[in-house]
């Protein structure tokens, strides 16, 4: 929604296309909320479970069922994935199992997904805004000629049973709420960690519906030659770390990043940084936190020498507790941090590391 996101004349935008209140007849049969389950190498991506939690709320509001869509090579493994879906809120799982679907590829996954939609007609379809989810969502929406709202931060159902998808725009300086009024399904992607992880309800069960993929390997041009897993496997964990310590330009030198790493290590957490640190090459790109980096949702976030620009803010707001260390008492980060200290991060960080180290080892000895 590149330009529709532009808030230039919202009144005019709302005026024209939304005049039509009555959904076209052939879309009235579209019912139920679906979540695409990202299942790879034996694991469900946590964002899919987060979306089941959110999808459950939408389905309850609409008084319809919540379905997970699992697509992959082996029916057995997908059965396991389906059981997890039920425990996280799904009533039903659509399963497409075919050896062609062993690794994610756009063509067969788009085919599987669009066939399912055309056959079973969901009114809402949610996907994780991962590299996989975004690759798939754009193709599916274009094939179905329906609306797709990217990177939503809030989802709700309005009084007319319409999905209200809210997302930041203009680099987070504004929020806009987007509807797909006259087309179905209403599609949205949500980034990992934006929605909370729902409680697992052990033993909760549901139904599995199988659907076959009508495609042959010869029809598919693109082949997966290899998959090279990230060597530094904990890189991917930043988004899911319980404790995150991050540094910004206030650290002043690349060497001082060490102070951030050391505190993170003592706390058993992970570390990251603001975007300028990536641009200066002080830190790897996948450790960037914020709108164009990772969204995090830790129990504790410590931001050292970060000013708190809106693009940074949108990535950290889900944290339970934000502690900001900044020399400037007027830095915008103090507007959304819970705790703040006006101090020099370069001297405070090592002191914090030492104080935590002692505190934790004393208590560990005691417990």
């Amino acid at each position, binding site marked *: 929604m590149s330009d529709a996101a532009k808030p230039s004349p919202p009144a005019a935008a709302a005026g024209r296309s939304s005049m039509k209140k009555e959904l076209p007849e052939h879309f009235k049969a579209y019912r139920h909320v679906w979540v695409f389950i990202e299942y790879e190498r034996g694991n469900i991506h946590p964002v899919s479970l987060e979306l089941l939690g959110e999808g459950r709320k939408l389905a309850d509001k609409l008084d319809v069922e919540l379905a997970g869509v699992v697509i992959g090579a082996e029916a057995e493994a997908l059965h396991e994935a389906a059981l997890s879906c039920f425990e996280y809120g799904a009533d039903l799982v659509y399963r497409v199992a075919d050896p062609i679907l062993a690794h994610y590829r756009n063509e067969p996954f788009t085919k599987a997904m669009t066939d399912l939609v055309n056959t079973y007609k969901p009114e809402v379809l949610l996907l994780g805004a991962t590299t996989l989810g975004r690759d798939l969502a754009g193709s599916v929406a*274009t094939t179905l000629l329906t609306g797709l709202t990217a990177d939503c931060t809030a989802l709700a159902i309005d009084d007319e049973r319409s999905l209200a998808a809210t997302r930041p*725009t203009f680099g987070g300086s504004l929020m806009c709420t987007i509807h797909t009024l006259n087309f179905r399904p209403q599609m949205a992607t949500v980034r990992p960690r934006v929605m909370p992880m729902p409680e697992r309800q052990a033993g909760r069960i549901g139904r599995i519906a199988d659907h076959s993929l009508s495609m042959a390997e010869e029809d598919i041009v693109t082949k997966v030659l290899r998959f090279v897993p990230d060597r530094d496997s904990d890189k*991917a964990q930043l988004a899911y770390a319980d404790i995150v310590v991050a540094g910004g330009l206030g650290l002043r030198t690349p060497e001082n990043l060490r102070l951030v790493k050391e505190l993170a290590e003592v706390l058993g957490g992970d570390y990251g940084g603001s975007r300028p640190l990536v641009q200066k090459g002080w830190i790897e790109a996948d450790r960037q936190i914020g709108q164009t980096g990772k969204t995090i949702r830790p129990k504790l976030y410590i931001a050292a020498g970060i000013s708190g620009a809106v693009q940074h803010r949108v990535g950290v707001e889900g944290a339970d507790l934000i502690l900001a260390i900044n020399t400037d008492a007027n830095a915008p980060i103090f507007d959304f941090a819970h705790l703040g200290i006006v101090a020099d991060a370069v001297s405070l960080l090592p002191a914090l590391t030492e104080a935590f180290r002692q505190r934790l080892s004393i208590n560990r000895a005691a417990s």
Partner: protein
Amino acid sequence: MHIVVCIKQVPDSAQIRVHPVTNTIMRQGVPSIINPYDLFALEEALRWRDQAGGTVTILTMGPPMAEDTMRKALTLGADRAVLLTDRCFAGSDTLATSFALATAIGKIGETWGPPDIVFTGKQTIDGDTAQVGPGIAKRLRFNQLTYVAKIDSLDPESRAITVERRAEGGLQVLQSRLPVLITMLEGTNELRRGSLDSALRAARAEVVRWGAAEAGVEDTAKCGLRGSPTVVKHVFAPKPRAEKAQIIETAAGPVRTQADAVIAAIFARQPGIESDLLRLARHS
């Protein structure tokens, strides 16, 4: 080889301010730039052209003033520029944008030869959806290669292409066949500086302007607001947090005193966190 690169002109969002009362974007004086992500796509296109021969056509959909952007890209070495501009495109969402761009790419193909590769950036900094690339690919029925970190090999003769694609938890090495649409990841190459030669050429080059009809759009109902299934209903400023940060006041004592005060404040605020920390510290 014929390569098309889709480039968008965007407001420099680092300089955008929101009017505190009306919640509208204050565009006055905000400079327009080439969407930074698209520069990596352009650079990759220029490299492969230099290596394998052929031409690079850049395409943008936007207001007439987007011509500045095109000229900048020509300076960097693109051979030809097409500016798609028509009132009927105003208010396009990603579906309508990809329709217009794909139609124009079809026309570019008819005019200057069918493209072998279409490049887009990973995403824009204003729309920020990463949807337009896949949308174009689907409409053109091109093989779609998104989040490409590296093109390992490209053979215009056999039409084979091998790329490294950023996937969840690793890199996928994919083999495909031209024509393809590639969305290029940021930071994957280093942008060249324009040469004097290309600067001179750019100054003389004409930016081709197409309206909807010239681009081959037959059904303008598929464009702009009318062609956009998504509707922006509501625009608002992010809610400020009700209260500001609780500032931990410490006398200008030794940092260790400050550190202890910080820890005390954290534990006071979130009593459960100490046991979490103990658990995490034990695992690390």
